[in-house]
């Protein structure tokens, strides 16, 4: 099921997060802007004004359309806003990883993967 073609081109990390998380991760060097006229960024800054539909769209873009993303990092409190999409997305690629943000401490109870872990072991 994991044929080479599905992930050989996947080299980048993408991030959907609040300003601080994105800034930090970009400082680490994950930022990538595709060349050409329709420059696409691999990060989305979400603030109080960002519409949920925008987040949704970015999530779909990073998970479905773009084939160069290996890992998608998303702030947990933002994942909460599109919880349904995050929970339904079960493909191994790209790996969707919920990360804590500065203002929202990490809560393992909400993580969709950890939820599955718990369910499997009936804890």
């Amino acid at each position: 099921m994991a044929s080479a073609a599905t992930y050989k081109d996947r080299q980048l990390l993408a991030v959907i997060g609040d300003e601080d998380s994105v800034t930090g991760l970009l400082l680490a060097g994950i930022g990538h802007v595709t060349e050409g006229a329709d420059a696409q960024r691999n990060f989305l800054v979400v603030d109080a004004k960002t519409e949920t539909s925008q987040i949704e769209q970015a999530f779909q873009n990073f998970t479905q359309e773009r084939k160069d993303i290996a890992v998608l990092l998303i702030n947990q409190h933002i994942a909460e806003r599109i919880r349904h999409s995050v929970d339904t997305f079960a493909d191994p690629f790209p790996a969707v990883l919920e990360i804590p943000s500065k203002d929202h401490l990490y809560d393992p109870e909400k993580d969709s993967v950890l939820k599955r872990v718990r369910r499997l072991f009936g804890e």
Partner: protein
Amino acid sequence: MSGAVGREPVFPTRQSLGLMKSKLKGAETGHSLLKRKSEALTKRFREITRRIDEAKRKMGRVMQIAAFSLAEVSYAVGGDIGYQVQESAKQARFRVRAKQENVSGVFLPQFESYTQEGVNDFALTGLGKGGQQIQRCRETYARAVETLVELASLQTAFLILDEVIKVVNRRVNAIEHVIIPRTENTIKYINSELDELDREEFYRLKKVSGKKQRDNAAADAEILAARKKAEAEEAAGAVAAAEPEAAPEAADVLGEQEDNDVIF
């Protein structure tokens, strides 16, 4: 339970019995193999799950430290560098490479982070002030992202293994609860049918042999009767010719015999 699974639509012949028997044997071998595979995968899976749990907690700490180093930056720079950082991002310096690891025939991807040399979009950020903090923050975040990448591989492995284990377990269960009982049922059915046929055959043979016996007996009787008749006639001729005193007795027997002959 096994009664409900039915049997395969085969003609109860000896050939299909042979087929079924080999099928049962194959299913049993496959079952034990798959069972072992599933056990190996589950072992791995549990290990990964444990590590995910650990890594997720570790991530919480690492990200906290990283976020704090960003706070240091904003303290040193005395302003917001977010926008500038977002705009100066061009080429990903931090990338991942996927390689495969084979666990009992399942290919698990393993992300490996590497940095693209010579790409540095933020070298001059904080030139005026705060550059050292930014440098440190970058290192902290790079380490944090490494942890994240590690976690991502674990998570992907988790998802794939989860899927594979489900498939394998489904197969194991199918073999254990459907295919084997069904094949056994079929074999039982074929056996019973064959037994039935055997019994029928036996009965038929018995019947035939019974008939044959009766026929034989009748034929024997006839031959015997014919022989007796011939003997009697011979004897009668001899008695009539040589011993006249024995003739009336012999004539009585003959008379009776003649009546019987009519019936026959």
